[in-house]
């Protein structure tokens, strides 16, 4: 019935709280473990989240909504966790202080009346004790009850319905004051049970007298405090949430403005406006990004300008070389016939010299012409003059025009069956080169075949093959056969060409979107294959297509 017992009662409460706390901590650990398991199970949730994000409309999964949601979540979690912790501590403090005060007063009162209450007491003794306790603590809304065995006295009303069996059992078996908070009719009450003990000289522990007093105190004031705290936390959370949304919108605006400017600038740049630059504001990462973009754009502009300058120079060079080479060649070529005609009438040496000059001039003319053609490809100055032609007829004309029809075996589709859009002049160059090569470097029979290969339902190719029966092409020469100035003449008859003919052929085929290849035939000789895409749609006879390079 003294200080240590109260302390014990307090300890009991703290112990219970501690146990509760431990349980809560245990729950958290369990939750954490669940999360760990979930994370370890794989990427299912992540994939699910991504799938959900992918299906979400763009305005909802943009940076702004995501920032708002993140800021709001952080604000709500922070406010709620802070509020919860503060609430718990404050509530515990309020209740603790209240109950400690009540228990202390009650104990003092019980100590005072217990001295004058005889054991075993009569009912009137119990009533006296109750009245004395109540009188000592007036105007506090106390309800007091005294019990001894089956005897009981209470005032102002019966409070036995608020006493739980556990509390009664504790009071009957323990020597310390016990208390409990209960809710009755929607109101919180503090119920305190105080067993009266007496000391004997023989025993260390005091003995229970069987006389106990109970107190019920309404805790409306404390309840009001707690509710006020909850309301305050709610309001604080709401304010934090609003602030978070505003801050998120501000932050998103600060990030999105430069990002949008960057997007606009990159689009403009892609459209060819290389002089586009971003305004650099501040000194944060976004300003760094803008600065980097500006540096990149400036570097790109410089590079492109340099490339254009070089390209223009290359074109000018090609044009200048063309003119400068052609002019003297024009003079020389014009008189080669005169030289050729006069050569037989001169002495042997002078005649041979004239013939050499004449032949050299002719070869130089061809070389210059080929060089000019190649340089036009390099400068991107070539254009396709597309026209829908009968491929077989076009190839036949090439052979007839050069007097080769008797020297080449042809297997061509019937006239009118294979029409496609090509540049007839360039196709003529390609076919003349391949057939001319086969006749010059290979051996008869030279064959020319033309077939159609369906690649897909909507894609088909005209396949033109030129085969000869000569020694074929050396395997080491095969990968270089379409390179410029490459002559595979070591294994073939002596070449008089410049080594540019096949390169020009390949360029012309590529310009048409086609393919060209060379191979040796198992039975001897070589085969050159040209594949041209069959284009029949949207025919336009006046169409001119920019060089593809």
């Amino acid at each position: 019935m003294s200080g240590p017992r109260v302390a014990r009662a307090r300890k009991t409460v703290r112990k219970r709280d501690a146990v509760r706390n431990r349980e809560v901590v245990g729950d958290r650990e369990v939750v954490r473990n669940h999360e760990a398991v979930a994370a370890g199970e794989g990427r299912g949730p992540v994939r699910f989240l991504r799938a959900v994000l992918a299906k979400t409309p763009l305005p909802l999964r943009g940076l702004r909504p995501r920032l708002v949601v993140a800021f709001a979540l952080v604000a709500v979690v922070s406010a709620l966790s802070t509020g919860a912790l503060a609430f718990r501590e404050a509530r515990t403090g309020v209740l603790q202080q209240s109950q400690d005060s009540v228990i202390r007063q009650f104990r003092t009162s019980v100590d005072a009346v217990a001295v004058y209450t005889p054991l075993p007491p009569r009912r009137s003794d119990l009533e006296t004790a109750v009245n004395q306790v109540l009188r000592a603590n007036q105007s506090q809304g106390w309800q007091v009850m005294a019990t001894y065995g089956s005897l009981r006295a209470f005032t102002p009303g019966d409070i036995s319905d608020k006493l739980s069996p556990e509390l009664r059992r504790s009071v009957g078996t323990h020597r310390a004051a016990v208390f409990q908070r209960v809710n009755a009719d929607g109101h919180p009450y503090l119920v305190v049970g105080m067993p009266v003990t007496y000391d004997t000289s023989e025993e260390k522990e005091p003995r229970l007298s069987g006389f106990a007093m109970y107190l019920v105190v309404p805790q409306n004031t404390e309840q009001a405090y707690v509710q006020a705290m909850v309301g305050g936390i709610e309001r604080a959370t709401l304010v934090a949430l609003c602030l978070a949304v505003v801050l998120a919108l501000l932050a998103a605006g600060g990030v999105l403005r430069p990002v949008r400017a960057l997007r606009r600038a990159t689009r403009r740049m892609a459209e060819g406006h290389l002089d586009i630059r971003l305004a650099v504001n501040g000194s944060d990462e976004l300003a760094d990004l803008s600065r980097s973009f500006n540096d990149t754009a400036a570097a790109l502009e410089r590079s492109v300008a340099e490339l254009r300058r070089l390209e223009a120079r290359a074109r000018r060079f090609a044009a200048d070389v063309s003119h400068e080479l052609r002019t003297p060649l024009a003079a020389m070529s014009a008189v080669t016939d005169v030289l050729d005609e006069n050569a037989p009438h001169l002495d042997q040496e002078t005649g041979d010299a004239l013939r050499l000059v004449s032949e050299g001039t002719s070869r130089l003319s061809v070389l210059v012409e080929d060089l000019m053609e190649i340089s036009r490809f390099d400068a991107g100055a070539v254009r396709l003059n597309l026209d829908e032609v009968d491929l077989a007829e076009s190839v036949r004309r090439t052979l007839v025009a050069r007097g080769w029809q008797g020297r080449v075996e042809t297997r061509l589709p019937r006239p009118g069956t294979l029409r496609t859009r090509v540049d007839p002049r360039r196709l003529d160059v390609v076919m003349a080169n391949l057939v001319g090569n086969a006749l010059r470097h290979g051996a008869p029979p030279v064959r020319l075949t033309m077939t159609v290969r369906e690649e897909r339902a909507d894609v088909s190719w005209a396949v033109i093959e030129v085969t000869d029966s000569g020694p074929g092409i050396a395997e080491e020469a095969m990968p270089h056969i379409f390179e410029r100035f490459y002559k595979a003449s070591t294994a073939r008859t002596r070449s008089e060409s410049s080594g540019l003919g096949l390169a020009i052929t390949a360029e012309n085929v590529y310009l048409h979107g086609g393919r060209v290849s060379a191979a040796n035939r198992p039975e001897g000789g070589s085969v050159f294959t040209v594949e041209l895409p069959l284009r029949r749609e949207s025919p336009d006879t006046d169409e001119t297509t920019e060089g593809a390079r």
Partner: protein
Amino acid sequence: MPRVLLVEDDPDVRKAVQLALRHQGHDVFAAATGEEGLERLRPFRPDVVVLDLMLPGISGLDVCRRIRDRDQVPIIMVTAKGDDIDVVVGLEAGADDYVVKPVQARVLDARIRAVLRRQDASVSVAVRPRAEAHGELVIDRAGLLVSHRGERVALAPSELRLLLTLSASPGQVFSRQQLLEAVWEHSYHGDIRLVDACVKRLRGKLGELGGDPRYIQTVRGFGYRFGSS
């Protein structure tokens, strides 16, 4: 003996071509500038003009246009610039044919003779009793005169020959290759740029540029035909 007016600024080329053409049997007068060529046009009365494209002073293109404005003499353009665009520009200025430098004398001679032959042939194929009218276009095959909306249209030889060839069979579609052979007598698988450039020039002179041409119609994927309506 065909009379050839050669306009070429480079002295070596001028001398060489002059020498070669004389060797081939032509009567050649060589002018060093466009101005000199234009001056000599009337007194010399050439059968054909061989004109270099790049000239100091008046360019070859301008010379070609000025000759076309007042004379129907055939013009063969000789160009050191072999790019497609240069050739097309030259043809559209009114040249009847073109060759790219360097050119052998035999080739140039063949081209000259072909141009002259076509001019003579224009007369022979055009022998018909009277003028024929196609809407507002009147073609006098005997007199080799063309008028549109009552006004005389001055046509270069290749333009006239193209118009005569197409209008001889109204409604019939001619491929470019057919026209190339019929009008330019190119015996090789030639250059359709000649046809397209000449059609463009002819349309320009008949006031048909832009919109839907009435007389010289394009048949997509095939060639051209003369509108019969």
